[in-house]
Every structure is written in structure tokens, then in C-alpha cells.
């Protein structure tokens, strides 16, 4: 190997640790962001940009038309209407700009991690050459050492290192990356803290994980999601209907002897078309992605976020998701002739050197249940630990005169018999009882000097279901989501844990093939499936699932296959992802309903104002008793514009979501956004009218 050159990475010193801005609070809308987003909102007035939002495009065309009319026929009223129509468009752009602005702050943080890095490419000859990170191609090998930035996404093929991934995860604790296995993937822009690794690059420049993240949070690669497209179609058709209603109103009005100014008709049109939801639709989508990012989840597409709201079946790995990672000692079950404390004491002694979580839990249980203090090695003379081996399938300790063993039932009973001891039926009964309850029995035996060995009892090891899981699953059930636990355990154990955790179903002794088959079966029944995974063997299932959340600690193939990546690598987060997906759709529905319901009041404001002069009877429709025709129309237009600003926080934060059945959720949202949508504008327009009518030339 050639001599190592000192790394010259400018980003190395200013380590790109995520600052707190990455975790913006959900609903906080700083009024200042409205101001700072204003230039961007004005830039979005470009018709070529706005044409992608048909509803707002119609408003802009209307505003342009009104500007011409106001210039030709200037009056306070005409100019007031024109200005407020332009403000309606600006407010809509502002909503989008604010939503994008939040993402941009995150992108800036990420960009710092992406600053030009020099890579040290390992040539076939074994030589190292310094190249720019952008020159790296798939398949290149690079060497990264302590203190250096990993130049690109890839897999560790040699060595092990601790890596600071805070640049992408926001988590400052370093993680271990090593060749082979499921922890081999590294992300460009993260920093190696110790040791030296050789990385095989798996992405070309510009396509790396960080690149994709930046594009995602900035909304640059944002494509309209299926539901958003469908909603846009509906909004466009409503716009066309109202366009027809206002255009044909012109001849109808002429026939009726109440010809209307074009400007008034434009005002009516803008009030009727669903501007509220039209203005906020893209902000809702961006904010939804943003909420996921705040939960440290990266969705590769908005489609996946929507699909999450639709999920019918959740596949959850048992270990780490439903249960704590490891089994714990739950109980000491002594045989009849032995006191429980004696068993606990022996079990503790046998586990002192056992550093596995299971071993630690035995020590802890002994202390908790019998007050047995953990003894250090020095306290006990003549102490020899017997480590666990695959051949003996037991471990233990020799204390001079006394030997203690713990391990699998068959191994320990064989050990006892070898040493002249008897194993009664009783042990078998206890062991079977534990096994059938889903636990793992560990038999403890001892042999004192010259005496036959004897079984002291059994330690009951069991999976510990995480706290609050039962309640989560109960919520899921109310939301209509079926939970399926995936485990490699035998069916007996699986059933016991499934019952304890409260999942609806389980797949025991699961192989990747079976998991895949289960997903396909569910999907054939029309269900949408979500799952998490991290290993390479999870990749096909992750790709098949409708929502596949890969753990960031997982392999790059897993991350490639899934459509979301959880940077915290917390499988439980699937549940939150589902909730965020639902919240996104609910927010859209709520604001659509609100927008349409608003029209009722606007008609009651504008129609009497337009025709009350000719048909006095129509003035009875002026239920708000608005001051004058001009003030009525202007008030409706102003309300229509202001309601957009008023609802930006809701669009960004999302409608409050509590897991409950569809029926009760619907009833609640209908009451708030449907009924509220009918009532609110009556009050709002009246209030604005009271103000507006004081303006000379209007009132």
C-alpha cells in the first residue's frame, strides 16, 4: 500500500452536525417567514409557473383582466377589487413558498455535508490516488480513515469503523459500519470517526442519498401524487362549472336589464371557484413530506406517503419492533426441594460473566426479586467461568467445591445425569410449561463436591413486549389496520407473544420467501401492505410492499428497495408514518370541503348586490345586510383572499389527527370543516363589510 496522504477535506473541520433547525416544531408558523417568503411568492406569479395550478391560474388571468379594466375605468371600487384579486394569487403563492422555505432550510444543512470532498481511490494496483468525489463512479473502491468524510454512498468491503451520521440522521451517537452483514452500507457526507475502511461506491455523483434528500426536502423533485392529481381534476371541473355559470350570467343579466361589469363577474368567479384549497393544495403536500422529515423519515415519493394513509396491513418484525430486542429473565421456577432464593443465587452466580443481555437480565431479576447484590469476581475466591459454547450449549461457573451450570434443558439434564444426579419429572413439566407459554426455559443445575448433581430449577426467559404496544395495536384496529407480527420463532412462541402484544395475526418461522408470499396474498385481496426491513434478504419484500420502510442502518440494497428510509432506524415508526399519511389526506379533504361550503355565503353576498337593484325582491337574499353592493362584493373578495392566509398554518401543520374509526372521524371533520365552512364566511364577510363600508367610494 502506498503512503497515506493527509486528507484535504474542507468540510472536515466544520463538521456538518445537524442544527436544531432540522426539527422544526409542527405547527409553528413564524410570521417572519411570511415576509421572507414574499419575494419567492412574487416570483411564482409567472404565468408559466402558475399554469400548473389551474384554479390559481384562472384567478391570475382574472386579476390581469381587472387591471386592464381598472386602468380604463379607474375608481376606488375597481382598484380595490383588482388589488385584492392580485393579493389572492400572492397569498396562494406565499403558502407554497413558506412550505418550500422550510424544506430549503433543511436542504441547506444537508448541502453543507455535500461540500466538495476529495476521495482517495484505491486502484487495482493497490495504489491510492486523490480524486474529486464527483469523479467517482459505481464500482470504484475508496479508502476512508478516521477524521475523513466518506465521499459517496457505498458498501464497506473491508474493515470496520465508527461513523458519525449526524449529518443525515441528526443523531450524534456514532454508529458502527463493517464489511459483510447488514451494517455495511455507508452514506456519502458522513464522517469516519475511527479506524479505516474500504468502501465500494454504489451510486454515481448526483444520485447519492444526500442528493436525493436535498431534492426531496426542497420539493424540486416533487411530483403530484395520485390523490393530488385526482383532486386537481375535481377542482378544475368545479372551476369550469363556475366559469360557465358566470360567463352565461352576462347574457342572462343583459336580458334581465341588469348588465354587469366584467369586473364584477370576475370577482364573482374568483369567489366561487375553490381558491382556498387550490391555493393550499401544494403547500399541504410539501408540508406532509416535511412532517415526515421532522420524524426523520425520508419518503422517496409523495406517492408512498399517500399509500401509507391507505395501508390495510402492517407487517411488523417481532424483535425490536414489538418486543425489546432481547429476551429477559422473567421468573425463577425452582424444583420442589429447592428454595427460590437458592435458585436465584445460583442463577446469578452462573450469569455473572455472561455479558449477553439475557445473562444481564438474570442478574437484574435476582437483585430485584431476591435482593441479591451483584457480586464482583474478586469477592469470590477460586472463581472460574465456563463460557457458553455451541457444543455444550450451556455456561456456568466453577467455585472450587461447587459447579453451577445453566443452559438448554437437554444439555443441562444430560450434564446432571453424567454426574450421577436424578432429574425428576418435575423439571420436564416446568420446562414444557414455559415452552408452551412462548418462553425459553433455562435449566440451572449444580454439583457440590462429591455429591450427585441436582437440578435447582428453571429460569423463565421471555420476550418483553414494549410498553404501550397493545394500545398502539388497539388504535390500529380502530383505524381498520390489521397488524401481522413476523418472527423466526416457532408457532407456539409466536402465538404467545402475538397474544400478549395484541397483534391480529402472526407469521412464525418466517423465511424471506414466506414473507414475500404473505405480502402478495394480502395484495391480491386488494390490501395495501406496509413493512419495515433492513437486511439484504428483506429487499424483495420491501420492494413488493406498498410502503417499504428501510432502516438507515440497513444495507444499501434494502434502502434501494424500500420507498422510505427511517434515519432513526426505529421500526415502530411505521405507525407514525401511517398517521402522517392519513393526516395529509384528511387535511386536503377538510380544506376542500371548507372551500366549497364557503360558496354558499358568497352567493348570499354577491347575487343580491348584483341584481338587488333591478329585482328588489332579491334584496331579501342579502341576509347579512351588507352595506352597499360595492362593499358586499369587495368584502366577499377580501374574505376569499384572507381565508387563504388564515389557513396557511393549518395547511402546514395538518388537521389534528386522532386514531379513531372512519365514521367518528368523518362526523367530527364534517362538523368542523363542513358546517364551519358554511357559517364562517357569513361572519367573516359581515365583519369585513363593517370595515370596508367606511371607505369613501365603497360604502
Amino acid at each position, binding site marked *: 500500500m502506498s503512503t497515506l496522504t493527509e486528507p484535504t477535506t474542507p468540510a472536515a473541520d466544520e463538521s456538518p452536525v445537524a442544527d436544531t433547525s432540522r426539527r422544526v416544531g409542527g405547527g409553528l408558523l413564524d410570521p417572519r417567514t411570511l415576509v421572507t417568503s414574499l419575494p419567492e411568492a412574487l416570483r411564482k406569479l409567472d404565468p408559466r409557473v402558475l399554469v400548473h395550478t389551474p384554479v390559481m391560474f384562472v384567478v391570475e388571468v382574472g386579476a390581469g383582466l381587472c387591471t386592464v379594466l381598472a386602468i380604463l375605468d379607474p375608481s376606488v371600487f375597481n382598484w380595490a377589487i383588482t388589488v385584492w384579486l392580485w393579493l389572492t394569487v400572492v397569498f396562494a403563492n406565499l403558502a407554497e413558498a413558506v412550505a418550500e422555505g422550510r424544506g430549503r432550510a433543511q436542504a441547506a444543512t444537508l448541502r453543507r455535508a455535500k461540500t466538495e470532498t476529495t476521495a482517495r481511490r484505491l486502484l487495482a494496483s493497490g495504489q491510492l490516488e486523490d480524486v474529486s468525489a464527483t469523479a467517482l463512479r459505481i464500482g470504484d473502491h475508496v479508502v476512508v480513515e478516521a477524521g475523513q468524510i466518506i465521499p459517496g454512498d457505498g458498501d464497506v468491503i473491508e474493515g470496520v469503523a465508527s461513523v458519525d451520521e449526524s449529518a443525515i440522521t441528526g443523531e450524534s451517537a456514532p454508529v458502527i459500519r463493517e464489511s459483510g452483514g447488514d451494517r455495511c452500507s455507508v452514506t456519502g457526507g458522513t464522517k469516519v470517526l475511527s479506524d479505516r475502511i474500504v468502501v465500494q461506491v454504489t451510486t454515481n455523483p448526483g444520485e447519492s442519498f444526500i442528493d436525493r434528500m436535498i431534492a426531496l426536502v426542497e420539493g424540486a423533485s416533487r411530483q403530484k401524487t395520485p390523490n393530488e392529481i385526482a383532486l386537481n381534476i375535481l377542482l378544475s371541473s368545479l372551476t369550469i362549472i363556475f366559469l360557465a355559470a358566470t360567463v352565461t*350570467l352576462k347574457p342572462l343579466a343583459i336580458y*334581465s336589464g341588469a348588465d354587469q361589469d366584467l369586473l364584477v363577474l370576475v370577482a364573482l368567479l374568483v369567489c366561487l371557484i375553490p381558491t382556498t384549497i387550490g391555493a393550499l393544495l401544494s403547500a399541504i403536500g410539501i408540508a406532509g413530506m416535511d412532517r415526515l422529515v421532522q420524524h426523520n423519515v425520508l419518503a422517496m415519493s409523495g406517492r408512498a406517503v*399517500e399509500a401509507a394513509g391507505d395501508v390495510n396491513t402492517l407487517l411488523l418484525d417481532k424483535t425490536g419492533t414489538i418486543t425489546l430486542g432481547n429476551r429477559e429473565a422473567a421468573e425463577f421456577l425452582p424444583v420442589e426441594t429447592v428454595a427460590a432464593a437458592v435458585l436465584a443465587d445460583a442463577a446469578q452466580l452462573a450469569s455473572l460473566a455472561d455479558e449477553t443481555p439475557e445473562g444481564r437480565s438474570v442478574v437484574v431479576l435476582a437483585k430485584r426479586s431476591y435482593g441479591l447484590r451483584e457480586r464482583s469476581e474478586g469477592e469470590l475466591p477460586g472463581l472460574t467461568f465456563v463460557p457458553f459454547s455451541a457444543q455444550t450449549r450451556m455456561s456456568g461457573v466453577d467455585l472450587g467445591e461447587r459447579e453451577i451450570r445453566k443452559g438448554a434443558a437437554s444439555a443441562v439434564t444430560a450434564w446432571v445425569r453424567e454426574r450421577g444426579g436424578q432429574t425428576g419429572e418435575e423439571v420436564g413439566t416446568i420446562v414444557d410449561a414455559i415452552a408452551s407459554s412462548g418462553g425459553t426455559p433455562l435449566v440451572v443445575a449444580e454439583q457440590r463436591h462429591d455429591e450427585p448433581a441436582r437440578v435447582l430449577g428453571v429460569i423463565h426467559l421471555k420476550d418483553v413486549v414494549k410498553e404501550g404496544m397493545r394500545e398502539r395495536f388497539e388504535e390500529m384496529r380502530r383505524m381498520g389496520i*390489521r397488524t401481522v407480527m413476523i418472527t423466526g420463532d416457532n408457532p407456539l412462541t409466536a402465538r404467545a407473544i402475538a397474544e400478549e402484544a395484541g397483534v391480529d395475526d402472526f407469521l412464525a418461522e418466517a423465511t424471506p420467501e414466506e414473507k414475500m408470499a404473505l405480502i402478495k396474498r394480502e395484495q391480491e385481496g386488494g390490501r395495501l401492505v406496509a413493512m419495515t426491513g433492513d437486511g439484504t434478504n428483506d429487499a424483495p419484500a420491501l420492494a413488493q410492499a406498498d410502503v417499504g420502510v428501510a432502516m438507515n442502518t440497513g444495507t444499501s440494497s434494502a434502502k434501494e428497495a424500500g420507498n422510505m428510509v427511517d434515519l432513526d432506524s426505529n421500526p415502530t415508526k411505521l405507525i407514525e408514518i401511517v398517521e402522517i399519511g392519513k393526516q395529509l389526506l384528511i387535511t386536503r379533504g377538510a380544506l376542500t370541503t371548507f372551500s366549497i361550503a364557503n360558496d354558499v355565503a358568497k352567493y348570499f353576498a354577491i*347575487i343580491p348586490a348584483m341584481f338587488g337593484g333591478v329585482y328588489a325582491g332579491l334584496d331579501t337574499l342579502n341576509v347579512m345586510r351588507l352595506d352597499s353592493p360595492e362593499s358586499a362584493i369587495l368584502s366577499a373578495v377580501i374574505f376569499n383572499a384572507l381565508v387563504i392566509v388564515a389557513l396557511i398554518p393549518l395547511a402546514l401543520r395538518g388537521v389534528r*389527527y386522532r386514531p379513531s374509526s372512519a365514521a367518528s372521524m368523518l362526523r367530527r371533520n*364534517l362538523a368542523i370543516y363542513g358546517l364551519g365552512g358554511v357559517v364562517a364566511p357569513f361572519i367573516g364577510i359581515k365583519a369585513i363589510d363593517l370595515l370596508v363600508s367606511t371607505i369613501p367610494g365603497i360604502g
Partner: protein
Amino acid sequence: MNDTLAGLLQVGALIAALALCYRPLGSYMAHVFTTERDLRVERVIYRLVGVDPRADQAWKTYAVALLAFSFAGVVLLYAVQRLQSGLPWSLGFPEVAPDLAFNTAVSFVTNTNWQAYSGEATMGHLAQMGGLAVQNFLSAAVGLCVAVALIRGFARSHTGRLGNFWVDLTRGVIRILLPLALVAAVVLILLGVVQNLSGGVDVSTLSGGNQTLPGGPVASQEAIKELGTNGGGFFNANAAHPFENPGAVSNLFEIFLLLLIPVCLTRTLGEMVGDLRQGYAILATMTVIWVVMLAAVWAIEAAHPTAAYDLAGSAMEGKETRFGVPGSSLYAVSTTGTSTGAVNSFHSSFSPVGGGLLMLNMGLGEVAPGGVGTGLYGILVMAILTVFIAGLMVGRTPELLGKKLRAGEMKLVALNILTMPLLVLGFTGLALALSGPRESILNAGPHGLSEVLYAYMSGANNNGSAFAGLSANTPFFNITLGVAMLAGRFIPIILTLALAGALSKQATVPRTSGTLPTNGPLFVGMLATVVLIVAGLTFFPALALGPLAEGL
């Protein structure tokens, strides 16, 4: 017995009679459209026409067959009218003018039965029976076909096939419409409706004058006119004519007939999609709208807001004394809520707001309960819209009966909902903007606007009832109304079939507690509200300048 009580008893009897038929007829229709067995006469027809009755058609094939069949109907009807003088039983009437013949041919094929002519003074018996009455059966059967195809779209999965148009059409006529019409005709004859083949009888009246009493196959045509929600009267006065509708009992029976199939189809829906409660929910929605409209019209007509009404005690102008306000309101709301368009009173003479409500009732898209078949597919399209808006609020991609409503489906639904308002508002605006058509208007001011608005509302919704006053037999109205009827009928049909095709391709998503329930009271309320709000928002400005301006 006072008027109100009599009216309530009529409504009660009507609902009871419909309730009695609901299950047997609904289930029977479900059987008709699902059974594999053909009747012998049907097999003969299939062989004669040369169709394979087991061929399961994709939506495009189904639609092409339907359109071709309907187009042939238009051509044939047009020819019969144009060649009338050379055909038998012409009663000496000359051939019909081209624009009127076009209008009439379209009108009957589209199940509209808008009549710009006076039946007894224009059409011979061949045109009436062989042309118009035949289309009364066929156009109703076509409506049934589309409804059944859409139901299959919901019921099936992973196929894209909707059944066979020719089989559905044949079965609809032979097994449903013909037997029902036969029974109905006999009952009508018993109730005093005329049925003969005479051209008319000259009689001397008591006062010494001479009068021709027209005759003809009235009862048979009356039966299918109501049953098939057609509405084209044998006489110009339609069901206000005593030979078509002699008294209160026949009046009630005719209302029963025009509501019968649309109401019972909801049961067919429930059975075919395997969820009876879904059928009840749709029926409940239709009933809610019908009852609200009836109550409003009745109350407004019974009240007498102006001095002129005071003389008669209520708004009796244009209404038959033998039916009274309740019998007239009941008929008017039922005929505008279905696509029948038969009238037993003159909607133009209803109080302005009452007349406006009848217009709105058509503007709802005729879904309460709507025409034969059209009512069901119309309200299912509205149900999709409702589910889409409100369904989002439960946090899932909206779905109805296990089918997801995505961009593709919503595009078809949006176009479907657009069609009728564009036709109505566009043509009304055009007619009022041009000086020629304006001369057809009888009354000045808002009532005149109502006359035009009503005509296009009636045409585009394939209702066919008229607001007296408008002289519609002019080339402009004949042609524009003809276009409105054609487009108002077949554009939604094509879009509905395409929708059915898209739905049948999908997998059916199982229902969970996270699914928006579409068969409960909450959904009924929501659907009724959406139907009312969408139509209300669309037509409010136009209605404000017509009926509201006149009435408020």
C-alpha cells in the same frame, strides 16, 4: 276530508305501494341481469340478430353497441316522421318538418320525450305506436343497461368486462318492461283510460256544438310512458288530459308507475353488489331529496302569496281541479325528479318559486329517484363525488363499494358532472343573447327567462316536461334542444360506461373500520347535501334571475 289530509294519504299510499314492490321487483331485476339462462324467445332474437349472448363485453364494445343501436333508432324515427304521409295509419297528417323530426327522433331515443309538437295534431298511429312507443321501451331499456353495467363495474373485479349489451337490452324489454307495461295498461284501462285504434269520434255536445273526441291506443302508451320514465303524452295536454289521466286514482297509479323501476333498482344494486344496506342508503338519499322537494313545492303552492291566488284559494291556475294542489305537486315533483317529464299540471303556472324548485329538481341531475337506470347511475356518480370530497376526511384514498377513486375515475366523474350544467347554462345564455330565439318567449322579464332555462334544463336532463309559454317549435330551439338532449344523454352514458370499465378492472378492497361507511345515515345526509349544494351552486345565479327574481 280536506286537501292536505287527502294529499298525505296519497303520499302514504304511494310509499306503501312502492315498499310492497321494492323487494320482489328489485330482486327480480337482479335475477334478470345475473342469470345465465335465456328464454326461448330471447334465443331466437339473438340468433336472428346474430349476437353471441355469452360474449362478455369490455366497456368500449358495450358502449359502441349501445350508441350504434341508439343511432339506428334516431335514423328510423326520423325516417318514419319524414315519410309519414306515405305510410299507413297516418290519419292524413303530412310529413313532419326536418328540424322537428330531428328534435322528436332524438327526444324519444334519449328517453326525453320533449314534444315540440301536439301529438294528436301531428303524428299518425304508426308514428305514435310503431315509432315513439317502441322507443319508449327501448330508450328505457338502454337506461337500465347502463345502470346494470355500472353496478357490474362495482361488483366485479380484475375483469374490465361489463356484460353483454344485447342481452341486457333484450332482457330489459322482454322480462321487465313488457310484462310490467302490460299489467299497467290493463289497470289504466280499468281506471278509465282510453284504448282503441280509432282516429276520433265526432259528437254533438249538449250545447249543440260539434266536437271531435280523439281516440287511440292511449292506455298502452300511457303505461310505458310512465313506467319507462318517458313522459311523451299521447295528447298535447299530457297527463292533464282526462283521456290519459281520468281521476285521482289513475293519477296516483301513474305516479306509482313512474317511480316504480327507479326505486326498485336500488334493491337490484344492493343485491348485485352484495350489500343490501348500500341499496337502502341510495334509496334513502333519493327519498330524502324527493320528500324535501315535495314538501317545499306543496307548501309554496298551497300558500297563496298574491291577490290573484287568493281568488282560487291556492295557486290553482294551470292545475286540474280533480288533482288539486297535493296531486299536482306530487306529480310535478315526481316527474321532474325522475326523467319522466309527463305533466298533469302546467309547471309554468306554478308559483315562481315552486316552478324554480321544479327546475332545480331537474338540475339536481334527476336523481330522486331519477329515470329508469339513469337515476341510479346518476346518483352513483354523485356518490363517488361525495365519497371523494368527504372520504378524504377519514384519511384514506376515497373508495366506494371497495373501489378506489383515483385520478382516472375522477376524470370520468368530473366530466360527467360537467356535461349537464354546461349544456343548460350555455344554451340558455345563447338563446337569451340572440334576438331570434328571444321572440319565442311568451312572457317578459324573469318568467320569460324561466321559460328558456326550464326548456334546456328539461332537455339536457332528458326530462321532457315543458314550462308552457315558450314556442319551442322553431329551428333554433328544435336543433339546440335536440343537441342538448343528445349530449345530455349520451356523453354521461359513455363516461359512465368508461367508469364502469375502470372500476371493474380494480381489485375490491375489503371493508375495514377505517373505511368510510357508505351505507349509513351519515352518508345519506352527506350525499343528499352534496347533490343539493352542487346543483344549487351551479344554478343559483340563473335561478336568481328567473324564479327567485319573480317570486321574492
